[in-house]
Every structure is written in structure tokens, then in C-alpha cells.
């Protein structure tokens, strides 16, 4: 190649050594110089042809697999038996022998197909190290129960059911844990290992990658690329959410990318990328008293919906127990019953995400608030009792309850639940265990003078709150 600069760019591109600036430079060259674009296309073609040439399956294997795949859909097994019979053309008394021969042949082909499900041509150096509940391995049209010790090959997908869990470990140390209701495909591209998350949630603990390599998790909306970090990512039909637990993740969508650092959250959907920075991440069972960034306040029922509503400090109404944070309330006792609120002292702004995990095993109710505390902001009231179940988004500012949205879909209290309330502009969304329950636009006016904080609240049926995480919009 007579152009040394272009040759060097192409060498680095095909060695996965080009950084973003280099990629931009090569793209610019290709745009203004047709010869550069042609060289890129020709070398890409060579690269792919080389990969295919070294990975291609045998011709008869291909044909047999096509025939086997045709089998179950149109009684094709019997069609294939007929094809074998046509070949054999036995005399009538011996036809049963031919039928038996065809059946044996089918059994052998079936066994061969199952054997192929068990071992693939291009290993990924990744192995299932834990599989619980409903967990399947999908390989080239076949399905196997996922089990410990199963080695993955390129193109494999794992799917977990409502009670399933599956963990994969790569040779270089990276761990990928698929939570319930998740489907992800495992692949490899020029830059390194790649997981394509179709739906659900996974946690990725990525080991440091070799120079020029990265570990990527792609979803229908975005891609997260890392070189050594811990993060959780979930994909639904409309949105991808990334939460970095440790390290930093390059999160990209719609031609834009952001670095999501420790504790931060980022979402991607058709409207683009949104970033949230962490305010707090509180693990209540590890605490003996309410953390300094929170305060407990109370207003009795008798004054709650009157113009004389008065909110008073109530440190003894929020308690830390071995299982988590609890509320002290007295339903039926007019003086001692009311709205107990544990709120952040800090203002977090109009837009925020509040996420709490509630211990299962007993009925509970809990309010999460954004854009103000539970007296002044927007609340999502979650109810999980034997009599009632569901979510209401409302506000009790200035006096009466103003219901803004509802979901009657039930919430059972048989196990721990993760509740999330997010306000972004006028849009309020509420999830239970990652399942979107409310998606509403709200225009109900709040007090101009309110403190724009976030809070937990309880009016009865006290919950045990295991954890609280709050994110806010980064400063512009």
C-alpha cells in the first residue's frame, strides 16, 4: 500500500488498536478518499473470509442440519423417512426392514444433532459455573438445560425463567450473572468478548482486559464497554439501564457516549442517553442508627389533611433493626398514628431516581417520594397486604390527596421486592423488580418553596427496608 498513513490506520484498525480519535480519522479518510474506503472494504472482506474459512462446518453437516431443522415442522421426520424409503425401494414384504433402517438412521442423526448441541466448533473460553431454577442454553436452534460445567461456544444464548439464575465465568476471570427473566447471547468480535442482552438483567464483573481488548455488553438500545469493572445492566422493550457498581463503563447509544462511574446510573432509550449521579447507597442492616444524611419527621393523621399541617422531628419513629429500617406507627391511636417520613436532608433537585428493597415475608406498605418529601413532593405509594395491593402516584400538597396515576397490578409480599420511582421532567415511572408498572406524565403543581429532596414514608403496615439508593441529575 503506497499510502503509509492509511496503511498504518488500517493495521491498527484490524488489530483493534485504534482509539476513538483514530477511528474518527480513518472514517474521515474513507469519506473523502474512495481508495481508502475501497481498501477498508477489501480488507474487511479478507478478514471475514479468513474467519469463515477457518470456522466453516463441513458440507454434509450443513445439509443434515438443514434437514433436521425442517424435521419437526412439517412431519419432516416422516418426510425424511419417506426419502430414505424412496432410496431403498424395498419389496413389499421387506418394507418393515426399511422402516426400521430409516428409524435407526433418524435416531443416529438425532443423536448427532444432540451431540452437536453439546459441543460447538468455536469455543468462547466461557463456562456456566452456576445454574439454578429454570435456565436453558439455546444453541443453533436447539435447547438444553443449562448446567454447571457447560462450555459455551460463539452464538450460544442463555435464558432464565422467572425463578432462574445462571452465572458464566470466562477464562480471563470475567463473571456474568444472569438474573431471573433474562436472555443473553454470547459472542466475540474483533475487539473482544461480547454479550448481547436481549431482555432482563445481568451483573457483569469484568476482569482487566488485554491491551486493545474490551468486554462489551450490547442491548437493543445501547452498548456498554469495559476493561475491568463491576456493573449491572438491564434491558426492557423500550429502555436499557446501566448501574456501575465499581470502576467505570463507557456507555454509548444514538451516536453519543458517556462514562458511567462508581455508583452512577445511566439510561438509554429512543430519546437518547440520560445520566444520573449517585446521592446515597444505604445498606440498612449494616447500620445501628439512621445515617447522618437522613432525618425522621412525623405528622399526626388529625392534622395531615388540614391547612394547619405541622411536621415535627421524630427520631424515635424510625428504627434500625437487624433486617433493616423500620417505622413505628400506631394505627387506631389518633395521637400516635400518622405519616412517618425518613427523608434526605440534602436537596437532590426536581428529577431523581429512588430505589428501595423491601424484605418479604409479611404484609407492608411504603411510600417513595421525589421532587420533595412525602408531604410536598410526588409520592408512589406501594401496597402489598392481604386486603389490598397496587401502586398509587399522588401528592398531598397542599392539603388533600391528589391521585395522579394508579396501577392495580398486585404486589405479593412473599419475597423481597425492589421498588423504584423515577421522575424525569414531567414523566414519572414506577417499577417493581424491574417491571414497569406506571409510566405517566404529571403536571400537578407543587409548592415553589418546597425542599426538593427524596424520602421514604409509611402510614401503616410497616415495611422493613433493606436498602435505599438515590440518584440525581448531574449539575449542568
Amino acid at each position, binding site marked *: 500500500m503506497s499510502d503509509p498513513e492509511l496503511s498504518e490506520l488500517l493495521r*491498527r484498525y484490524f488489530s483493534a488498536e485504534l482509539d476513538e480519535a483514530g477511528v474518527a480519522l480513518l472514517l474521515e479518510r474513507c469519506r473523502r478518499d474512495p481508495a481508502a474506503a475501497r481498501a477498508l472494504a477489501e*480488507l474487511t472482506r479478507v478478514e471475514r473470509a479468513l474467519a469463515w474459512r477457518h470456522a466453516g462446518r463441513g458440507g454434509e453437516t450443513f445439509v443434515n442440519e438443514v434437514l433436521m431443522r425442517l424435521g419437526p415442522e412439517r412431519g419432516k421426520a416422516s418426510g425424511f423417512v419417506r426419502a430414505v424409503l424412496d432410496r431403498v425401494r424395498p419389496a413389499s414384504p421387506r418394507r418393515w426392514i426399511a422402516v426400521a433402517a430409516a428409524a435407526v438412521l433418524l435416531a443416529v442423526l438425532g443423536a448427532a444433532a444432540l451431540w452437536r448441541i453439546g459441543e460447538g466448533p468455536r469455543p468462547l473460553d466461557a463456562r456456566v459455573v452456576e445454574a439454578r431454577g429454570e435456565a436453558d442454553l439455546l444453541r443453533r436452534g436447539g435447547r438444553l438445560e443449562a448446567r454447571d460445567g457447560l462450555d459455551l461456544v460463539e452464538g450460544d444464548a442463555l435464558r432464565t425463567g422467572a425463578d432462574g439464575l445462571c452465572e458464566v465465568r470466562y477464562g480471563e476471570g470475567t463473571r456474568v450473572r444472569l438474573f431471573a427473566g433474562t436472555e443473553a447471547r454470547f459472542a466475540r468480535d474483533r475487539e*473482544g468478548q461480547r454479550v448481547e442482552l436481549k431482555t432482563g438483567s445481568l451483573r457483569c464483573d469484568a476482569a482487566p482486559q488485554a491491551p486493545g481488548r474490551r468486554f462489551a455488553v450490547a442491548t437493543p438500545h445501547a452498548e456498554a464497554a469495559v476493561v475491568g469493572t463491576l456493573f449491572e445492566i438491564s434491558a426492557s422493550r423500550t429502555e436499557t439501564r446501566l448501574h456501575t457498581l465499581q470502576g467505570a463503563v463507557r456507555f454509548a447509544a444514538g451516536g453519543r457516549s458517556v462514562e458511567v462511574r462508581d455508583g452512577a446510573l445511566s439510561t438509554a432509550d429512543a430519546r437518547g442517553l440520560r445520566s444520573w449521579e449517585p446521592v446515597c447507597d444505604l445498606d440498612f442492616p449494616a447500620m445501628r442508627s439512621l445515617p447522618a444524611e437522613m432525618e425522621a419527621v412525623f405528622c399526626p393523621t388529625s392534622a395531615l389533611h388540614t391547612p394547619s399541617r405541622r411536621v415535627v422531628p421524630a427520631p424515635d419513629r424510625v428504627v434500625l433493626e437487624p433486617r433493616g429500617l423500620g417505622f413505628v406507627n400506631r394505627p387506631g391511636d389518633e395521637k400516635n398514628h400518622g405519616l412517618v417520613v425518613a427523608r434526605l436532608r440534602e436537596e437532590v433537585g426536581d428529577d431523581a431516581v429512588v430505589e428501595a428493597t423491601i424484605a418479604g415475608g409479611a404484609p407492608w406498605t411504603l411510600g417513595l417520594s421525589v421532587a420533595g418529601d412525602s408531604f410536598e413532593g410526588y409520592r408512589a405509594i406501594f401496597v402489598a397486604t392481604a386486603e389490598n395491593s397496587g401502586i398509587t402516584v399522588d401528592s398531598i400538597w397542599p392539603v388533600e390527596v391528589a391521585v395522579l396515576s394508579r396501577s392495580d397490578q398486585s404486589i405479593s409480599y412473599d419475597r423481597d421486592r425492589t421498588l423504584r420511582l423515577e421522575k424525569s421532567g414531567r414523566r414519572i415511572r414506577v417499577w417493581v423488580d424491574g417491571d414497569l408498572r406506571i409510566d405517566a406524565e404529571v403536571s400537578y403543581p407543587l409548592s415553589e418553596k418546597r425542599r426538593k429532596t427524596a424520602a421514604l414514608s409509611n402510614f401503616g403496615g410497616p415495611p422493613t427496608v433493606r436498602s435505599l439508593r438515590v440518584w440525581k441529575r448531574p449539575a449542568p
Partner: protein
Amino acid sequence: MPDENEPELVREAQRGGLEAFARLVRLHRRAVLACLAVRMDSPNDAEDLAQEVFIVAHGKLAAFDPGRPFGPWLRGIAHNLLLNYRRKYRPAAVGHLVELQAVADQGIDQAHAAGGEEGLLGAMEGCLEKLDPESRDLLRLRYGESLPVGEVCARLQKKHSAVTMWLHRVRLALRDCIERRMAESSP
């Protein structure tokens, strides 16, 4: 690959003859695979999609006119499935890398607008034979065993820059050889 009995094979397959359909798969497997392999980064995905082409073709066989050539019809199905695959598995456009891949794909589509992918793979086989044994070994490690460059360096006890430069030179040599052979074989 055209075949003088192809229309008859198609008719037989339309009557439910699986043996005839298997023969059609054998005839066109390599062309369909080549068409997809040069357009997809994952060779396994290319094989899976090629199988899907024949599954779809089998399902639509009744509507096919046996008087028409079978290969271009399969090619059309392959292109449609490839478009669906890209929609499904490619993430939303992310940075310049995806644009760069789009430039490469566009160039490949233009070069093979009228086919010829199978000839390219055939030409490459001949070109690989002309490589020195060390370079063939390098390609075996990189593509046959799918080793990252770092591991190839360790196996060959060579520096990273030396291996990437070597790979680059081999790719360039293969490209030039393939172009030459394809030009020689074109009418």
C-alpha cells in the same frame, strides 16, 4: 451453482421430495454461505443464517416458479434475512466505529452487487496455498484457534507490534492475490 436438472429438482422438492431439496441445498450451500460470510463478522452466525435461508426457501417453495433460476431467489432471501439480522443484533449507532463498519459493508455490497462471493472464497484458497508456512501458521493461530493477538505473540514469542504488522502484511498480500485471481477468472 447452476445445474441442468435444477428445475426438475425444484419441481420434485415442491412435490415434497426431501431428497431433491437436499440436493438443492448441496448445490447452493457454498454460494449462499459465501454471500453471507463476507458480510458478517461472525462466521458461525453466517452459517446459522445460511441454514435459515434454506429453511425459509423450503417454506416458500410452493410459490417459486421452477422456470426461474434458484440461486438468485435464494440470494434475495439471504439479503432479507441479513437485513433482519442486522436490525436485531446491531446496537443503535454508537460512535464512529459503527459508521466505519457501515462504510466497509457498503463497499462489500457494491463489489458484490452481482454476486461473485463464492469466487472470492475460491480465490482465497489458492492464495493461502501460496503463503509461506510461517504465515499460514500465524493465520491458523489467529483465525483457526481464535486467539487474541496477545496470545499469538506469546505462542510465537514475538512482539505485539511485530505480529500485528505481520498480520497486516499477510492480509494485504491475500487481498492483492485475491483481486488478481478474480480479475484473471472474470470473463
